[in-house]
């Protein structure tokens, strides 16, 4: 039986381990441990894995609040960690693009960001996450007071940009990005529904 006490004691550790798992799996693949391999195009594999987990973590972060309406507030303690993991995966996604994919070719990177809408959108998404990660500490939260909450509503924009980035990147089959669009529509829709219900 998972009691609130157990969640309090071991919850964060469990969530931390779960959030690290995709990254660990990727690292094992990079070092070709056992049968694990990145395949013929390793850089693309890393890029896609980090990107999709970034989006999944964002969705998980946004799913917590509606969940607490049902389960009570104890789950909210995981929200900051999930958000920081989302930022970590998205940041590593960008670093892989910067370092391994483009090998610091800044001319090409700037051209990509300016000329290619799906990269522009992805980059904007990362920019909107950065202040949220920075101000995630208790110290910043106290300093910003009620503005902290306003600032962190930026995450709604982040998740829309992230999903849009995925949607535009796909060549033809839109099934997977559309599933994420639907998930995000539900997560944001629930919030709107709640606002109207309380009025």
């Amino acid at each position, binding site marked *: 039986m998972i009691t609130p006490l157990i969640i309090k004691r071991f919850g964060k550790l469990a969530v931390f381990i779960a959030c690290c798992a995709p990254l660990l799996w990727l690292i094992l693949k990079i070092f070709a441990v056992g049968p694990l391999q990145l395949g*013929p195009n390793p850089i693309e594999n890393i890029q896609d894995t980090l990107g999709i987990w970034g989006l999944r973590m964002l969705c998980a972060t946004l799913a917590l609040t509606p969940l607490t309406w049902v389960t009570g507030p104890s789950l909210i303690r995981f929200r900051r960690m999930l958000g920081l993991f989302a930022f970590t995966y998205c940041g590593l996604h960008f670093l892989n693009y910067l370092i391994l994919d*483009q090998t610091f070719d800044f001319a090409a990177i700037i051209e990509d960001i300016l000329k290619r809408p799906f990269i522009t959108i992805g980059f904007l998404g990362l920019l909107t996450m950065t202040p949220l990660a920075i101000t995630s500490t208790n110290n910043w939260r106290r300093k910003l007071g009620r503005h902290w909450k306003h600032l962190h509503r930026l995450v709604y924009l982040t998740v829309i940009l992230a999903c849009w980035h995925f949607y535009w990147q796909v060549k033809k089959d839109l099934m997977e990005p559309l599933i994420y669009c639907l998930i995000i529509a539900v997560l944001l829709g629930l919030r709107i529904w709640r606002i109207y219900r309380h009025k």
Partner: protein
Amino acid sequence: MLIRQKPVIRSFQITPEHNYLNRRDFIGSTALAGTSLLFAPGCAGADDKTPAANPEVNSFEDITRYNNFYEFGLDKEDPAKLSGAFNTSPWSVTIDGEAEITGKFNFEDIIGPHAIEERIYRFRCVEAWSMVVPWNGISLSNVLQRFKPTSKAKFVAFETVYRPAEMPGQRRGVLDFPYREGLTIAEAMHPLTLLATGLYGVDLPGQNGAPLRLIVPWKYGFKSIKSIVRISFTETRPYTTWSDAMPAEYGFYANVNPEVDHPRWSQARERRIGSGLFAKKQPTLMFNGYGDEVASLYTGLDLTRHF
């Protein structure tokens, strides 16, 4: 008609892959030594672990595990995993349209009269990755000429087999199957244009377009249609799957061109498959490096508009 049988012992059974990859060194060194094969380094089997002594050519594994063949699925690994039920024997090809000889022909009758050659070609995908593949096949022109195309034959259209029961990707209908492609008659008759039947000396695996596919090395890979069941000589430009589905992103010509970007990504550089984690992308060459041979096909054509 002379029916040429495939050799009973295939070259891959005689020559291990790394020796095959080393064959230039082998030929070079034996020419230098001028004498005994016993001292040829490629033959000694001493350096089994060399991944590719000829770094240009991709490994058999890379070529057969990283495929775009939407008939079997959308992920690059899907075709290798999901083409097991694909049966290519017997196989027949319908030849129709503007030609004197038309009809349905067995695979053996199409290929039989010709000697299979090996061609090592660069292969550039529109998604900005590339490989170097040792194909086996025959010049398409040699085959087409036997059917005596008439003066009305301005284009050649190709069609991939439609077998949803064996090709799970066709059941999802991501593209307008059966997959179709086309070339101008001049492109189809160009000596570089290959009708491939194998790679690395083995029959084409299902995921690479068994048993018969097109290879047009100066064009993006999607032009090189796989598992062909129909070749039609037409007077007008035929339907081509990608360029008709998304005309803003894929053109009929689809010549490799580093100066004309895809709307969503740059075509100036390419990722060489098999080059590892720390390799830089390499510059893409005009006509994929085959400009000397094929640029004259396009004199007067605005390649920015006719991409």
